């Protein structure tokens, strides 16, 4: 007698198919609990505060300027990457270091799968730490009333970079396990970042734009204020960095002990896919061209990114002329109106004198910062258009309020004389110098103002020795020097006139001056 016929049939437990993800989740939880990355996060936090946050606080409260150093030039990545690579290498070499490589090779899970779980835990801690630190930094900025919009795409690039460093470091540890794996992975990451900075600073186009430390032509003041940050280049960078991460993780699965032939073939495909993705990112960056609002990659560009951000300007009065700025620049309105007051007072009532001054978006330049955006006077009635982002705003990169005011005066007077994008004729230069003197910039200080960094190229060209047969420039030598020469002699004569006489002379000769037909000899 048996119970075989009466015994109920035992079915496969219904949750058997769920056991694989459950086991993977349990493995990941174990790895998260025993991971060394949390122990290094306080050190990274200190480095992050010191190197990424602290220097940014000296910049004006505008997102694109505050984050230029830590996001635009990738210092958050420099602070995270090497430490993350080192700790990931330590985690990757764990099994060999502990002498359990043979033991774990014969477990039910393939070696590669177990290593991926270990890497995933390391990456979760690292990327999570990165996002938390950036969130705290951005929260502090928001609390400080920083204007504009945050560079979210650059945050995504940073997270991708941390993931890539984590994967590369882990691969170093897994493939070359030793006590030196961690320091060498960290050193390699430092070297890569240093070389990336070296290449990034000197390359304004081509493949080098893929480097996350390269801010040339892709992180300038109009972004986040007048136009959205163009996501083209960040998307290519994410593709490149994710490709590196995938390729590094695929490499771990290639050795004989990583798994069976099927798994190793999969690892080879993964490695190849990563290399292709990284190569595609580099190729896309190579096609980038400088647009008015940043780097445009035709294959990735979305026309919606070119739409300007709507805003209601904030306005003030300066010598009876309305001066309007983007609300992000609200705190600079008193400085701007005060700086323009003497200039607008000088040209008030003259034909072609501006009846309004308004801030406009400057066009991107290929360098690190937005350089060379001149002020213009155009339209009917005439409007002075000011791309303020190109100037050294008070606090930005060491700029002072006085320097800011002097540069505003110079650019607005230059626009008034009709000199355009060049240094102007000697007569235009002389009138410019005389009006600047009247606006409170003495002759002796004018060459210094002209040589300031961040001005359009005509400013430094004004300081060059005069071309033959073209009169004399304001300075007889290259660079700031004494205000001498025929241009300044004429300027001094014009400046010496009573204001009413100077005004009358300008009213009579402004047309000829702007058309470039007036000579130095025709000045009073």
């Amino acid at each position, binding site marked *: 007698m048996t119970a075989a016929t009466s015994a109920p049939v035992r079915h496969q437990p219904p949750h058997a198919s769920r056991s694989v993800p459950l086991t993977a989740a349990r493995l990941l939880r174990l790895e998260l609990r025993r991971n060394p990355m949390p122990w290094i996060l306080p050190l990274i936090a200190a480095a992050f505060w010191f*190197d990424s946050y602290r220097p940014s606080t000296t910049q004006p409260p505008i997102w694109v300027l505050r984050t230029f150093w830590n996001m635009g030039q990738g210092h958050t990545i*420099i602070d995270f990457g090497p430490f993350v690579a080192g700790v990931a290498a330590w985690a990757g070499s764990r099994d060999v270091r502990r002498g359990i490589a043979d033991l774990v090779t014969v477990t039910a899970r393939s070696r590669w799968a177990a290593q991926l779980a270990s890497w995933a835990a390391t990456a979760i801690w690292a990327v999570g730490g990165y996002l938390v630190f950036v969130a705290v930094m951005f929260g502090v900025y928001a609390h400080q009333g920083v204007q504009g919009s945050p560079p979210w795409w650059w945050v995504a690039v940073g997270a991708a970079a941390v993931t890539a460093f984590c994967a590369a470091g882990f691969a170093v540890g897994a493939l070359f396990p030793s006590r*030196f794996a961690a320091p060498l992975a960290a*050193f390699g990451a430092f070297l890569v970042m*240093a070389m990336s900075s*070296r290449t990034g600073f000197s390359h304004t186009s081509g493949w080098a734009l893929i480097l996350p430390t390269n801010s040339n032509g892709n992180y300038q003041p109009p972004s986040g204020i007048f136009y959205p940050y163009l996501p083209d280049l960040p998307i290519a960078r994410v593709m490149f960095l994710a490709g590196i991460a995938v390729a590094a993780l695929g490499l771990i699965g290639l050795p004989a002990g990583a798994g069976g032939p099927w798994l190793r073939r999969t690892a080879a495909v993964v490695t190849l896919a990563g290399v292709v993705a990284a190569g595609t990112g580099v190729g896309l960056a190579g096609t980038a061209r400088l647009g008015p609002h940043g780097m445009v990659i035709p294959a990735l560009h979305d026309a919606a990114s070119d739409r300007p951000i709507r805003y209601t300007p904030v306005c003030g009065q300066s010598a009876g002329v309305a001066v309007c700025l983007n609300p992000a620049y609200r705190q600079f309105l008193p400085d701007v109106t005060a700086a323009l007051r003497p200039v607008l007072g000088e040209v008030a009532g003259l034909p072609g004198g501006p009846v309004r001054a308004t801030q406009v978006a400057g066009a991107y330049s290929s360098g690190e910062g937005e350089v060379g955006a001149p002020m213009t006077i155009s339209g009917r009635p005439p409007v002075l258009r000011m791309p303020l982002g190109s100037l050294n705003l008070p606090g930005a990169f060491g700029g002072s309020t006085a320097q800011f005011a002097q540069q505003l005066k110079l650019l607005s007077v230059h626009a008034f004389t009709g000199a355009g994008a060049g240094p102007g004729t000697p007569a235009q230069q002389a009138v410019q110098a005389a009006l600047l003197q009247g606006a409170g910039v003495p002759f002796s200080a004018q060459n210094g103002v002209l040589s300031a960094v961040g001005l359009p190229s005509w400013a430094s060209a004004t300081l060059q020795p005069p071309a033959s047969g073209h009169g004399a420039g304001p300075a007889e030598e290259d660079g700031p020097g004494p205000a001498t020469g025929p241009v300044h002699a004429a300027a001094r004569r014009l400046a010496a006139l009573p204001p009413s006489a100077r005004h009358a002379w300008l009213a009579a000769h402004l047309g000829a001056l702007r058309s470039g037909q007036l000579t130095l000899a025709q000045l009073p």
Partner: protein
Amino acid sequence: MTAAGIHRPPPGAAEARPASRRALATLRLAWLYLVSRRAPAAAGLLAALGALLRAALHGNWSVAGGPAAQQVLPLVIETGAAAVIAVTTYGPFGDTERATGRWLPWLRLGTALLLTAVAAGALAAGATGGHLPGGSLALARNLAGMTGTGLLAAAALGGAFAWTGPMAYWLITESALTRSWTTPWTWPARPPHDLGAALCAYGVFAAGTAAVTLLGARHSSRRPAPE
């Protein structure tokens, strides 16, 4: 069974053989200690870093920018050398090793000094014929100071993570170079003949060496008792 066939050793031999044995044993102990710390591999890596410095200086790898930017790559390589020296303090034996005798502090001291000397020699050789900002004097000072941060990190965090000391210090130095700081504690940003910077750098090296000699690298979660 008798002892008739046993020969007495000649007078004086009894003292000579233990003395030579003692010397051999000391050398063997030192060698075993060096091997246990992977010092030969470390020396090979330091030589490779010297070659890398040579390639950087002769291949014009310098970072674009002013004089401060020219220091970045040599400093990164010096940081790497300091990190390699620092992780040699890691030992897997823990209490077992600490209970073996009174020579351990001397072995630690000798290893740290020897590898620092090897690193200085390798990097100086690598810099020969190239333009190294600050010259060999600055190289020795910077390397000593950074090694000191690594050894201090070893005493505080353990040998395995000792490399974080020089790396973190490099980040501070980079800021100092960018912003033209003048404090002697950021010695790489100071001129090679600056006395304050030299005192700070060699002081940190002395502190790190003393910490590793007396305390050893931190093992596990417990700080080892002074030897």
